[in-house]
Protein backbone atom coordinates (compact mmCIF):
# COMPACT_ATOMS: atom_id res chain seq x y z
CA UNK A 1 0.00 0.00 0.00
CA UNK A 2 1.55 3.20 -1.14
CA UNK A 3 1.84 6.07 1.30
CA UNK A 4 -0.61 8.92 0.79
CA UNK A 5 0.58 12.51 0.59
CA UNK A 6 -1.41 13.36 3.72
CA UNK A 7 0.47 10.70 5.69
CA UNK A 8 3.95 12.03 4.89
CA UNK A 9 5.64 13.33 8.06
CA UNK A 10 5.62 17.08 8.66
CA UNK A 11 9.27 17.13 9.74
CA UNK A 12 11.52 19.08 7.40
CA UNK A 13 15.22 18.43 6.84
CA UNK A 14 15.56 21.30 4.36
CA UNK A 15 15.27 24.65 6.14
CA UNK A 16 13.75 27.67 4.43
CA UNK A 17 15.95 30.50 3.25
CA UNK A 18 18.62 28.25 1.74
CA UNK A 19 20.72 29.35 -1.21
CA UNK A 20 19.12 27.19 -3.89
CA UNK A 21 17.42 28.76 -6.90
CA UNK A 22 13.69 29.27 -6.59
CA UNK A 23 12.06 26.02 -7.76
CA UNK A 24 15.15 23.85 -7.13
CA UNK A 25 14.41 20.14 -7.64
CA UNK A 26 17.33 19.12 -5.42
CA UNK A 27 15.88 20.67 -2.25
CA UNK A 28 12.41 19.39 -3.19
CA UNK A 29 13.69 15.83 -3.57
CA UNK A 30 15.75 16.08 -0.40
CA UNK A 31 12.61 17.06 1.54
CA UNK A 32 10.87 13.78 0.61
CA UNK A 33 14.04 11.79 1.22
CA UNK A 34 14.50 13.36 4.65
CA UNK A 35 10.93 12.55 5.64
CA UNK A 36 11.65 8.90 4.86
CA UNK A 37 15.09 8.66 6.45
CA UNK A 38 14.15 10.30 9.73
CA UNK A 39 16.55 12.30 11.88
CA UNK A 40 19.16 9.58 12.42
CA UNK A 41 21.22 9.92 9.25
CA UNK A 42 24.56 11.21 7.99
CA UNK A 43 24.83 13.02 4.68
CA UNK A 44 27.79 13.22 2.29
CA UNK A 45 27.95 15.73 -0.53
CA UNK A 46 30.35 16.19 -3.42
CA UNK A 47 30.53 19.56 -5.22
CA UNK A 48 27.08 20.29 -6.59
CA UNK A 49 24.34 22.88 -6.46
CA UNK A 50 23.29 21.47 -3.10
CA UNK A 51 26.68 22.31 -1.61
CA UNK A 52 26.44 25.82 -3.03
CA UNK A 53 23.01 26.26 -1.49
CA UNK A 54 23.61 24.71 1.94
CA UNK A 55 25.18 27.84 3.40
CA UNK A 56 28.58 28.81 4.79
CA UNK A 57 30.00 27.81 8.18
CA UNK A 58 28.68 28.25 10.88
CA UNK A 59 25.26 28.02 9.26
CA UNK A 60 23.72 25.13 7.39
CA UNK A 61 20.41 24.72 5.61
CA UNK A 62 19.96 20.99 6.33
CA UNK A 63 19.29 19.35 9.66
CA UNK A 64 21.65 16.41 8.97
CA UNK A 65 25.30 16.23 9.92
CA UNK A 66 26.95 16.62 6.54
CA UNK A 67 30.40 16.11 5.06
CA UNK A 68 31.60 17.98 1.98
CA UNK A 69 34.00 15.71 0.15
CA UNK A 70 35.99 15.61 -3.10
CA UNK A 71 34.09 15.27 -6.35
CA UNK A 72 35.30 11.77 -7.22
CA UNK A 73 35.01 10.22 -3.78
CA UNK A 74 31.32 9.85 -2.90
CA UNK A 75 31.39 6.04 -2.89
CA UNK A 76 34.67 5.64 -1.02
CA UNK A 77 34.02 8.42 1.53
CA UNK A 78 30.59 7.06 2.40
CA UNK A 79 32.10 3.59 2.74
CA UNK A 80 34.67 5.05 5.14
CA UNK A 81 31.96 6.59 7.28
CA UNK A 82 30.07 3.28 7.35
CA UNK A 83 33.20 1.33 8.40
CA UNK A 84 33.96 3.90 11.11
CA UNK A 85 30.43 3.61 12.51
CA UNK A 86 30.66 -0.18 12.46
CA UNK A 87 34.00 -0.05 14.28
CA UNK A 88 32.56 2.30 16.89
CA UNK A 89 29.59 -0.01 17.40
CA UNK A 90 31.89 -3.01 17.71
CA UNK A 91 33.87 -1.24 20.45
CA UNK A 92 30.66 -0.35 22.22
CA UNK A 93 31.10 3.42 21.72
CA UNK A 94 28.04 3.70 19.51
CA UNK A 95 24.84 2.57 21.17
CA UNK A 96 21.35 2.20 19.82
CA UNK A 97 20.21 2.38 16.21
CA UNK A 98 22.94 2.81 13.58
CA UNK A 99 22.59 6.05 11.60
CA UNK A 100 21.71 5.71 7.92
CA UNK A 101 24.60 6.93 5.77
CA UNK A 102 23.62 8.45 2.45
CA UNK A 103 25.23 10.49 -0.30
CA UNK A 104 23.52 13.35 -2.10
CA UNK A 105 25.23 13.67 -5.46
CA UNK A 106 24.40 15.33 -8.77
CA UNK A 107 24.60 13.55 -12.09
CA UNK A 108 28.16 14.78 -12.67
CA UNK A 109 29.38 13.12 -9.48
CA UNK A 110 27.54 9.94 -10.40
CA UNK A 111 27.69 9.43 -14.16
CA UNK A 112 31.14 10.90 -14.79
CA UNK A 113 33.51 12.00 -12.06
CA UNK A 114 32.28 9.80 -9.22
CA UNK A 115 31.63 6.66 -11.24
CA UNK A 116 34.72 4.69 -10.26
CA UNK A 117 34.19 5.13 -6.50
CA UNK A 118 30.47 4.44 -6.91
CA UNK A 119 31.07 1.26 -8.87
CA UNK A 120 33.65 0.08 -6.34
CA UNK A 121 31.32 0.74 -3.39
CA UNK A 122 28.54 -1.16 -5.19
CA UNK A 123 30.90 -4.07 -5.79
CA UNK A 124 31.95 -4.11 -2.11
CA UNK A 125 28.25 -3.89 -1.19
CA UNK A 126 28.92 -1.15 1.36
CA UNK A 127 25.97 -0.40 3.58
CA UNK A 128 24.75 3.04 2.50
CA UNK A 129 22.29 4.69 0.12
CA UNK A 130 23.69 6.47 -2.92
CA UNK A 131 21.28 9.16 -4.10
CA UNK A 132 21.79 10.73 -7.49
CA UNK A 133 19.63 13.74 -8.31
CA UNK A 134 19.85 13.85 -12.06
CA UNK A 135 19.38 17.27 -13.62
CA UNK A 136 21.19 16.20 -16.78
CA UNK A 137 24.01 18.75 -16.67
CA UNK A 138 26.68 20.35 -14.48
CA UNK A 139 24.23 23.04 -13.39
CA UNK A 140 26.24 24.39 -10.46
CA UNK A 141 29.05 25.63 -12.68
CA UNK A 142 26.72 27.15 -15.26
CA UNK A 143 25.22 24.20 -17.18
CA UNK A 144 27.94 22.21 -18.94
CA UNK A 145 27.26 18.88 -20.64
CA UNK A 146 27.52 15.73 -18.55
CA UNK A 147 27.18 12.03 -19.28
CA UNK A 148 23.52 12.41 -18.35
CA UNK A 149 22.77 15.18 -20.86
CA UNK A 150 20.48 13.83 -23.60
CA UNK A 151 21.30 14.19 -27.28
CA UNK A 152 20.40 17.52 -28.95
CA UNK A 153 20.29 19.39 -25.61
CA UNK A 154 22.03 22.76 -25.67
CA UNK A 155 24.45 23.44 -22.82
CA UNK A 156 27.24 26.00 -22.56
CA UNK A 157 29.72 23.40 -23.80
CA UNK A 158 27.39 22.06 -26.50
CA UNK A 159 26.04 25.30 -27.99
CA UNK A 160 24.80 23.52 -31.12
CA UNK A 161 23.18 20.68 -29.19
CA UNK A 162 24.84 17.55 -27.78
CA UNK A 163 25.69 15.03 -30.48
CA UNK A 164 26.01 11.94 -28.26
CA UNK A 165 23.36 9.99 -26.38
CA UNK A 166 23.30 9.90 -22.59
CA UNK A 167 24.49 6.85 -20.69
CA UNK A 168 21.98 4.57 -19.12
CA UNK A 169 23.22 4.81 -15.56
CA UNK A 170 20.29 2.95 -13.91
CA UNK A 171 20.95 -0.09 -16.12
CA UNK A 172 24.68 0.11 -15.33
CA UNK A 173 23.82 0.03 -11.63
CA UNK A 174 21.33 -2.79 -12.24
CA UNK A 175 24.19 -4.90 -13.57
CA UNK A 176 26.11 -4.38 -10.35
CA UNK A 177 23.46 -6.74 -8.90
CA UNK A 178 23.11 -4.61 -5.77
CA UNK A 179 20.51 -5.53 -3.11
CA UNK A 180 18.23 -2.62 -3.95
CA UNK A 181 18.00 0.18 -6.46
CA UNK A 182 15.24 2.43 -7.73
CA UNK A 183 14.53 5.31 -10.07
CA UNK A 184 12.25 8.08 -8.83
CA UNK A 185 10.93 11.50 -9.76
CA UNK A 186 10.35 14.74 -7.85
CA UNK A 187 6.81 14.74 -9.26
CA UNK A 188 5.95 11.53 -7.34
CA UNK A 189 7.02 12.37 -3.76
CA UNK A 190 5.02 9.60 -2.08
CA UNK A 191 6.56 7.04 -4.45
CA UNK A 192 10.02 8.43 -3.68
CA UNK A 193 9.23 8.29 0.05
CA UNK A 194 8.23 4.62 -0.15
CA UNK A 195 11.37 3.74 -2.08
CA UNK A 196 13.63 5.47 0.47
CA UNK A 197 11.83 3.78 3.38
CA UNK A 198 12.37 0.43 1.65
CA UNK A 199 16.04 1.18 0.93
CA UNK A 200 16.60 2.18 4.54
CA UNK A 201 15.45 -1.24 5.71
CA UNK A 202 17.81 -3.18 3.41
CA UNK A 203 21.42 -3.93 4.36
CA UNK A 204 24.03 -3.41 1.68
CA UNK A 205 24.46 -0.99 -1.19
CA UNK A 206 21.41 0.92 -2.36
CA UNK A 207 21.19 3.26 -5.35
CA UNK A 208 18.31 5.68 -5.95
CA UNK A 209 18.26 8.03 -8.92
CA UNK A 210 15.87 10.98 -8.81
CA UNK A 211 14.92 12.80 -11.98
CA UNK A 212 15.19 16.55 -11.33
CA UNK A 213 14.33 19.15 -13.99
CA UNK A 214 16.55 22.23 -13.57
CA UNK A 215 14.83 25.37 -14.82
CA UNK A 216 17.84 27.66 -15.44
CA UNK A 217 19.69 24.76 -17.05
CA UNK A 218 16.90 23.44 -19.23
CA UNK A 219 15.43 26.90 -19.81
CA UNK A 220 11.79 26.64 -18.86
CA UNK A 221 9.58 28.61 -16.49
CA UNK A 222 10.29 27.98 -12.82
CA UNK A 223 6.65 27.14 -12.06
CA UNK A 224 6.76 24.18 -14.48
CA UNK A 225 9.45 22.24 -12.61
CA UNK A 226 7.14 19.58 -11.16
CA UNK A 227 4.99 19.53 -14.29
CA UNK A 228 8.02 18.70 -16.46
CA UNK A 229 9.13 15.96 -14.07
CA UNK A 230 5.62 14.48 -14.34
CA UNK A 231 5.63 14.77 -18.14
CA UNK A 232 9.01 13.00 -18.22
CA UNK A 233 7.46 10.04 -16.39
CA UNK A 234 4.28 9.97 -18.48
CA UNK A 235 6.22 10.17 -21.72
CA UNK A 236 8.57 7.38 -20.68
CA UNK A 237 11.70 9.55 -20.64
CA UNK A 238 12.01 8.75 -16.94
CA UNK A 239 10.90 5.21 -16.14
CA UNK A 240 10.05 4.48 -12.49
CA UNK A 241 11.12 1.04 -11.32
CA UNK A 242 12.72 -0.83 -8.46
CA UNK A 243 15.18 -3.68 -8.69
CA UNK A 244 16.63 -6.20 -6.30
CA UNK A 245 19.78 -8.23 -6.96
CA UNK A 246 19.86 -7.44 -10.67
CA UNK A 247 16.21 -7.99 -11.51
CA UNK A 248 13.43 -5.46 -11.79
CA UNK A 249 10.78 -6.32 -9.24
CA UNK A 250 8.36 -3.43 -9.31
CA UNK A 251 7.13 -0.75 -11.70
CA UNK A 252 5.31 2.27 -10.32
CA UNK A 253 3.19 5.18 -11.51
CA UNK A 254 2.50 5.60 -15.22
CA UNK A 255 5.54 3.44 -16.07
CA UNK A 256 3.53 0.35 -15.12
CA UNK A 257 0.93 0.97 -17.82
CA UNK A 258 3.57 2.02 -20.34
CA UNK A 259 5.65 -1.12 -20.00
CA UNK A 260 3.00 -3.73 -19.21
CA UNK A 261 0.24 -2.77 -21.63
CA UNK A 262 2.39 -1.11 -24.26
CA UNK A 263 0.31 2.05 -24.01
CA UNK A 264 1.49 4.93 -26.18
CA UNK A 265 3.70 7.43 -24.30
CA UNK A 266 1.85 10.70 -23.66
CA UNK A 267 3.13 14.26 -23.61
CA UNK A 268 6.51 13.67 -25.25
CA UNK A 269 6.14 16.65 -27.56
CA UNK A 270 4.85 18.86 -24.75
CA UNK A 271 7.81 17.82 -22.59
CA UNK A 272 10.38 18.68 -25.25
CA UNK A 273 8.56 21.81 -26.40
CA UNK A 274 8.63 23.36 -22.92
CA UNK A 275 12.43 23.26 -22.75
CA UNK A 276 14.57 26.00 -24.25
CA UNK A 277 17.51 23.60 -24.60
CA UNK A 278 15.68 21.74 -27.38
CA UNK A 279 14.23 24.84 -29.05
CA UNK A 280 16.83 24.86 -31.83
CA UNK A 281 15.64 21.47 -33.08
CA UNK A 282 11.95 21.80 -32.10
CA UNK A 283 11.62 24.89 -34.30
CA UNK A 284 13.53 23.43 -37.26
CA UNK A 285 12.51 21.04 -40.03
CA UNK A 286 14.29 18.26 -38.12
CA UNK A 287 11.52 18.32 -35.47
CA UNK A 288 9.57 15.27 -36.73
CA UNK A 289 12.67 13.12 -37.08
CA UNK A 290 13.82 14.22 -33.63
CA UNK A 291 10.48 13.37 -32.01
CA UNK A 292 10.42 9.97 -33.71
CA UNK A 293 14.00 9.34 -32.61
CA UNK A 294 13.22 10.17 -28.99
CA UNK A 295 10.11 7.99 -29.00
CA UNK A 296 12.02 5.11 -30.56
CA UNK A 297 14.63 5.54 -27.81
CA UNK A 298 11.93 5.41 -25.13
CA UNK A 299 10.48 2.20 -26.62
CA UNK A 300 13.93 0.64 -26.83
CA UNK A 301 14.57 1.42 -23.15
CA UNK A 302 11.26 -0.21 -22.24
CA UNK A 303 12.17 -3.35 -24.21
CA UNK A 304 15.47 -3.47 -22.30
CA UNK A 305 13.56 -3.23 -19.03
CA UNK A 306 11.17 -6.04 -19.99
CA UNK A 307 14.10 -8.40 -20.44
CA UNK A 308 15.23 -7.74 -16.90
CA UNK A 309 11.87 -8.03 -15.15
CA UNK A 310 11.09 -10.72 -12.62
CA UNK A 311 7.79 -9.53 -11.26
Amino acid at each position, binding site marked *: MATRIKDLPAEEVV*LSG*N*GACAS*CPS*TLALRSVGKALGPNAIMLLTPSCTVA*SMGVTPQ*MAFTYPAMNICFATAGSSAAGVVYALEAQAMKGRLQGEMPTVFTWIGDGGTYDIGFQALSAAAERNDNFIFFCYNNEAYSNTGVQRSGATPAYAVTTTTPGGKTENKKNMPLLMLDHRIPYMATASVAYPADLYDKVVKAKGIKGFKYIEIFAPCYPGWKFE*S*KDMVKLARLAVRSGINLLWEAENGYITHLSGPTKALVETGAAPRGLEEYLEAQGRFRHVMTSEKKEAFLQGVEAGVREEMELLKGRMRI
Partner: protein
Amino acid sequence: MLEIRIHGHGGQGTVTLAELIAYAQMKMGRHVQTLPFFGMERRGAPVKTAMRLSDEEILLKSQVYKPHVLVLLSEGLESGAVQQGLHKQGVVLVNRACVAERSGENVAANVPGCNPSVDAWGIARACELVLMGQPLINVPMFGAVSRLLGISPQAVTESIEYKWPAGSEASVRAALRGYEEVQGLEGLPDMARWIGDAAELPTEIPMEIPVELPTELPAALKANRITGVPAHPVSFPQKGVSGQTGTWRLERPVINKDTCTSCLLCWVFCPEAVIEKETLDIDYTYCKGCGVCAEECPAKAINMIREGE
Protein backbone atom coordinates in the same frame (compact mmCIF):
# COMPACT_ATOMS: atom_id res chain seq x y z
CA MET B 1 36.59 58.21 -15.09
CA LEU B 2 33.07 57.32 -14.04
CA GLU B 3 32.32 54.18 -12.04
CA ILE B 4 28.93 52.46 -12.15
CA ARG B 5 27.61 49.55 -10.12
CA ILE B 6 24.53 47.60 -11.16
CA HIS B 7 22.60 45.58 -8.59
CA GLY B 8 19.87 43.10 -9.32
CA HIS B 9 18.76 39.55 -8.83
CA GLY B 10 20.17 36.57 -10.73
CA GLY B 11 18.34 36.15 -14.04
CA GLN B 12 17.44 39.83 -14.47
CA GLY B 13 20.37 40.46 -16.77
CA THR B 14 22.79 42.72 -14.90
CA VAL B 15 25.71 41.41 -16.95
CA THR B 16 23.86 41.90 -20.23
CA LEU B 17 22.90 45.43 -19.19
CA ALA B 18 26.56 46.22 -18.56
CA GLU B 19 27.45 44.78 -21.98
CA LEU B 20 24.83 46.91 -23.71
CA ILE B 21 26.12 50.06 -21.98
CA ALA B 22 29.64 49.07 -23.00
CA TYR B 23 28.68 48.66 -26.68
CA ALA B 24 27.00 52.06 -26.69
CA GLN B 25 29.98 53.73 -25.01
CA MET B 26 32.42 52.11 -27.42
CA LYS B 27 30.35 53.42 -30.32
CA MET B 28 30.93 56.87 -28.82
CA GLY B 29 34.66 56.26 -28.80
CA ARG B 30 35.07 55.84 -25.05
CA HIS B 31 37.05 53.31 -23.08
CA VAL B 32 34.92 50.87 -21.09
CA GLN B 33 35.36 48.08 -18.55
CA THR B 34 32.64 45.69 -17.43
CA LEU B 35 33.33 43.78 -14.23
CA PRO B 36 30.87 41.04 -13.39
CA PHE B 37 31.20 39.99 -9.77
CA PHE B 38 31.63 36.23 -9.65
CA GLY B 39 29.98 34.54 -6.74
CA MET B 40 27.16 32.05 -6.68
CA GLU B 41 24.94 33.43 -9.43
CA ARG B 42 21.80 31.55 -8.59
CA ARG B 43 18.49 32.52 -10.07
CA GLY B 44 16.99 35.13 -7.80
CA ALA B 45 19.97 35.68 -5.54
CA PRO B 46 21.37 39.23 -5.26
CA VAL B 47 24.05 39.82 -7.91
CA LYS B 48 26.11 42.81 -9.00
CA THR B 49 28.14 44.02 -11.94
CA ALA B 50 30.36 47.08 -12.14
CA MET B 51 31.59 49.30 -14.98
CA ARG B 52 34.17 51.98 -15.64
CA LEU B 53 33.81 54.59 -18.36
CA SER B 54 36.51 57.00 -19.42
CA ASP B 55 37.71 59.09 -22.34
CA GLU B 56 41.20 57.77 -21.72
CA GLU B 57 42.63 54.30 -21.39
CA ILE B 58 41.56 52.68 -18.11
CA LEU B 59 44.51 51.26 -16.20
CA LEU B 60 42.69 50.40 -12.98
CA LYS B 61 41.68 46.71 -12.94
CA SER B 62 40.13 46.29 -9.50
CA GLN B 63 36.50 45.92 -8.48
CA VAL B 64 34.52 49.13 -8.14
CA TYR B 65 34.36 50.16 -4.49
CA LYS B 66 33.24 53.80 -4.73
CA PRO B 67 30.71 54.09 -7.54
CA HIS B 68 29.33 57.42 -8.76
CA VAL B 69 26.23 55.85 -10.26
CA LEU B 70 24.12 53.02 -8.87
CA VAL B 71 21.65 51.17 -11.07
CA LEU B 72 19.11 49.12 -9.12
CA LEU B 73 17.18 46.62 -11.22
CA SER B 74 15.19 45.13 -8.47
CA GLU B 75 13.21 45.70 -5.36
CA GLY B 76 14.09 44.03 -2.12
CA LEU B 77 17.84 44.47 -2.41
CA GLU B 78 19.44 44.77 0.98
CA SER B 79 19.82 48.45 1.65
CA GLY B 80 23.25 48.54 3.28
CA ALA B 81 25.06 46.28 0.82
CA VAL B 82 23.71 48.23 -2.14
CA GLN B 83 24.72 51.72 -1.05
CA GLN B 84 28.15 50.71 0.20
CA GLY B 85 30.73 53.19 -1.04
CA LEU B 86 28.37 55.36 -3.10
CA HIS B 87 29.52 58.98 -3.52
CA LYS B 88 27.36 61.39 -1.59
CA GLN B 89 26.55 63.37 -4.72
CA GLY B 90 26.07 60.13 -6.63
CA VAL B 91 23.13 59.25 -8.82
CA VAL B 92 20.82 56.32 -8.07
CA LEU B 93 18.71 55.06 -10.97
CA VAL B 94 15.99 52.68 -9.83
CA ASN B 95 13.48 50.44 -11.50
CA ARG B 96 10.36 51.99 -10.03
CA ALA B 97 9.13 48.73 -8.52
CA CYS B 98 12.30 49.06 -6.47
CA VAL B 99 10.75 51.84 -4.41
CA ALA B 100 8.28 49.24 -3.24
CA GLU B 101 6.53 49.32 0.06
CA ARG B 102 7.58 45.75 0.72
CA SER B 103 10.82 46.16 2.58
CA GLY B 104 9.62 49.48 3.96
CA GLU B 105 12.98 50.88 2.96
CA ASN B 106 13.60 53.11 -0.01
CA VAL B 107 17.27 52.81 -0.93
CA ALA B 108 17.21 55.89 -3.16
CA ALA B 109 15.61 58.07 -0.46
CA ASN B 110 18.70 57.67 1.70
CA VAL B 111 20.88 59.25 -0.98
CA PRO B 112 20.93 63.04 -1.15
CA GLY B 113 21.85 63.20 -4.86
CA CYS B 114 19.69 62.81 -7.95
CA ASN B 115 17.25 59.86 -7.93
CA PRO B 116 15.78 59.14 -11.35
CA SER B 117 13.42 56.19 -11.77
CA VAL B 118 11.72 54.24 -14.55
CA ASP B 119 9.00 51.58 -14.59
CA ALA B 120 11.12 48.95 -16.35
CA TRP B 121 8.82 46.12 -15.31
CA GLY B 122 5.78 47.79 -16.85
CA ILE B 123 7.60 48.73 -20.06
CA ALA B 124 9.02 45.23 -20.58
CA ARG B 125 5.54 43.77 -20.05
CA ALA B 126 3.95 46.29 -22.43
CA CYS B 127 6.54 45.55 -25.12
CA GLU B 128 6.00 41.78 -24.63
CA LEU B 129 9.63 41.34 -23.69
CA VAL B 130 9.13 38.27 -21.51
CA LEU B 131 11.43 35.24 -21.40
CA MET B 132 10.73 32.12 -19.31
CA GLY B 133 7.97 34.07 -17.55
CA GLN B 134 10.24 36.92 -16.49
CA PRO B 135 10.01 40.40 -17.99
CA LEU B 136 13.41 41.46 -19.37
CA ILE B 137 13.73 44.61 -17.30
CA ASN B 138 17.37 45.15 -18.22
CA VAL B 139 16.43 46.39 -21.71
CA PRO B 140 14.24 49.34 -20.60
CA MET B 141 16.81 50.01 -17.90
CA PHE B 142 19.46 50.23 -20.64
CA GLY B 143 17.41 53.00 -22.27
CA ALA B 144 17.15 54.84 -18.96
CA VAL B 145 20.88 54.53 -18.19
CA SER B 146 21.66 55.78 -21.69
CA ARG B 147 19.60 58.92 -21.04
CA LEU B 148 21.61 59.54 -17.87
CA LEU B 149 24.96 59.00 -19.53
CA GLY B 150 24.11 61.10 -22.57
CA ILE B 151 24.06 58.20 -25.02
CA SER B 152 22.05 59.02 -28.16
CA PRO B 153 18.90 57.01 -29.02
CA GLN B 154 20.69 56.11 -32.25
CA ALA B 155 23.53 54.47 -30.28
CA VAL B 156 20.95 52.68 -28.09
CA THR B 157 19.30 51.17 -31.16
CA GLU B 158 22.62 50.19 -32.74
CA SER B 159 23.88 48.53 -29.56
CA ILE B 160 20.78 46.36 -29.25
CA GLU B 161 20.92 45.42 -32.92
CA TYR B 162 24.59 44.51 -32.46
CA LYS B 163 23.81 42.35 -29.40
CA TRP B 164 20.76 40.61 -30.88
CA PRO B 165 21.06 40.75 -34.68
CA ALA B 166 17.84 38.75 -35.12
CA GLY B 167 14.52 39.86 -33.66
CA SER B 168 15.58 43.02 -31.85
CA GLU B 169 12.47 45.13 -32.63
CA ALA B 170 10.71 44.62 -29.27
CA SER B 171 13.98 45.25 -27.42
CA VAL B 172 14.64 48.49 -29.32
CA ARG B 173 11.10 49.65 -28.62
CA ALA B 174 11.42 48.85 -24.91
CA ALA B 175 14.82 50.53 -24.63
CA LEU B 176 13.61 53.69 -26.34
CA ARG B 177 10.57 53.80 -24.08
CA GLY B 178 12.87 53.48 -21.09
CA TYR B 179 14.92 56.33 -22.56
CA GLU B 180 11.84 58.55 -22.86
CA GLU B 181 10.02 57.60 -19.69
CA VAL B 182 12.77 57.98 -17.12
CA GLN B 183 11.60 60.45 -14.49
CA GLY B 184 13.21 62.61 -11.83
CA LEU B 185 16.11 63.91 -13.91
CA GLU B 186 16.07 67.29 -12.12
CA GLY B 187 19.51 68.16 -10.82
CA LEU B 188 21.23 65.49 -12.91
CA PRO B 189 24.96 66.23 -13.04
CA ASP B 190 26.70 66.47 -16.40
CA MET B 191 27.80 62.88 -16.78
CA ALA B 192 29.89 63.53 -19.89
CA ARG B 193 32.08 65.85 -17.81
CA TRP B 194 32.27 63.27 -15.02
CA ILE B 195 33.40 60.67 -17.52
CA GLY B 196 35.86 62.93 -19.29
CA ASP B 197 37.53 64.86 -16.54
CA ALA B 198 38.64 63.46 -13.22
CA ALA B 199 38.68 66.97 -11.74
CA GLU B 200 34.93 67.27 -12.29
CA LEU B 201 34.11 64.17 -10.23
CA PRO B 202 32.49 64.59 -6.83
CA THR B 203 35.10 64.45 -4.13
CA GLU B 204 32.99 64.05 -1.02
CA ILE B 205 33.59 61.02 1.16
CA PRO B 206 31.59 58.01 -0.02
CA MET B 207 28.83 56.58 2.08
CA GLU B 208 30.12 53.95 4.43
CA ILE B 209 27.67 51.49 5.81
CA PRO B 210 29.10 49.44 8.68
CA VAL B 211 28.98 45.71 8.06
CA GLU B 212 27.15 44.00 10.88
CA LEU B 213 28.85 40.89 12.18
CA PRO B 214 26.98 38.31 14.21
CA THR B 215 27.55 39.01 17.89
CA GLU B 216 26.50 35.63 19.27
CA LEU B 217 28.63 32.74 18.09
CA PRO B 218 27.50 29.17 18.60
CA ALA B 219 29.22 27.51 21.55
CA ALA B 220 31.31 25.17 19.40
CA LEU B 221 32.93 28.11 17.61
CA LYS B 222 34.18 29.67 20.81
CA ALA B 223 37.72 28.95 21.86
CA ASN B 224 38.37 25.84 23.86
CA ARG B 225 38.48 26.77 27.56
CA ILE B 226 41.69 24.89 28.28
CA THR B 227 43.78 25.17 25.12
CA GLY B 228 42.49 28.52 23.90
CA VAL B 229 42.29 27.07 20.38
CA PRO B 230 39.03 27.70 18.55
CA ALA B 231 36.92 24.59 18.26
CA HIS B 232 36.41 22.92 14.89
CA PRO B 233 34.38 24.91 12.39
CA VAL B 234 31.10 23.15 12.98
CA SER B 235 27.94 24.26 11.20
CA PHE B 236 24.50 24.36 12.74
CA PRO B 237 21.12 24.01 11.04
CA GLN B 238 19.59 27.42 10.67
CA LYS B 239 16.84 29.03 8.66
CA GLY B 240 17.86 31.74 6.25
CA VAL B 241 21.46 30.76 5.50
CA SER B 242 21.17 32.95 2.39
CA GLY B 243 19.39 35.79 4.18
CA GLN B 244 15.75 36.66 3.77
CA THR B 245 15.22 34.88 0.49
CA GLY B 246 11.72 36.32 0.29
CA THR B 247 13.39 39.40 -1.22
CA TRP B 248 14.23 37.31 -4.33
CA ARG B 249 10.53 37.09 -5.11
CA LEU B 250 8.80 38.98 -7.92
CA GLU B 251 5.37 37.45 -7.40
CA ARG B 252 3.94 36.03 -4.19
CA PRO B 253 1.59 33.05 -3.90
CA VAL B 254 -1.69 33.74 -2.09
CA ILE B 255 -3.89 30.82 -1.02
CA ASN B 256 -7.63 31.32 -1.28
CA LYS B 257 -8.77 29.36 1.76
CA ASP B 258 -12.38 29.28 0.48
CA THR B 259 -11.60 27.19 -2.59
CA CYS B 260 -8.67 25.30 -1.04
CA THR B 261 -9.43 21.59 -0.58
CA SER B 262 -6.45 20.96 1.76
CA CYS B 263 -5.04 18.33 -0.61
CA LEU B 264 -1.55 19.35 0.61
CA LEU B 265 -0.02 19.23 -2.88
CA CYS B 266 1.33 22.78 -2.42
CA TRP B 267 2.95 21.68 0.83
CA VAL B 268 4.52 18.57 -0.63
CA PHE B 269 5.75 20.29 -3.82
CA CYS B 270 7.19 23.44 -2.21
CA PRO B 271 10.95 23.27 -2.92
CA GLU B 272 11.63 25.80 -0.17
CA ALA B 273 9.54 24.15 2.60
CA VAL B 274 7.84 27.47 3.39
CA ILE B 275 4.28 26.10 3.52
CA GLU B 276 3.09 24.83 6.89
CA LYS B 277 1.48 21.38 6.69
CA GLU B 278 -1.26 21.92 9.26
CA THR B 279 -2.34 25.49 8.55
CA LEU B 280 -1.06 25.95 4.96
CA ASP B 281 0.37 29.30 6.01
CA ILE B 282 3.14 30.56 3.74
CA ASP B 283 6.32 31.98 5.27
CA TYR B 284 6.80 35.04 3.06
CA THR B 285 10.12 35.85 4.73
CA TYR B 286 11.69 32.99 2.79
CA CYS B 287 9.27 32.15 -0.08
CA LYS B 288 11.22 32.69 -3.32
CA GLY B 289 8.08 32.93 -5.45
CA CYS B 290 8.85 30.10 -7.89
CA GLY B 291 5.14 29.52 -8.56
CA VAL B 292 5.22 25.70 -8.34
CA CYS B 293 2.45 25.68 -5.71
CA ALA B 294 0.12 27.77 -7.88
CA GLU B 295 0.84 25.61 -10.93
CA GLU B 296 0.30 22.33 -9.07
CA CYS B 297 -2.85 23.34 -7.14
CA PRO B 298 -5.65 21.19 -8.61
CA ALA B 299 -8.35 23.53 -7.27
CA LYS B 300 -6.56 26.62 -8.68
CA ALA B 301 -6.83 28.12 -5.20
CA ILE B 302 -3.38 29.74 -5.30
CA ASN B 303 -2.80 32.95 -7.23
CA MET B 304 0.53 34.59 -7.99
CA ILE B 305 0.30 38.30 -7.24
CA ARG B 306 2.99 40.78 -8.24
CA GLU B 307 4.84 42.22 -5.27
CA GLY B 308 3.76 45.71 -4.34
CA GLU B 309 0.19 45.23 -5.58
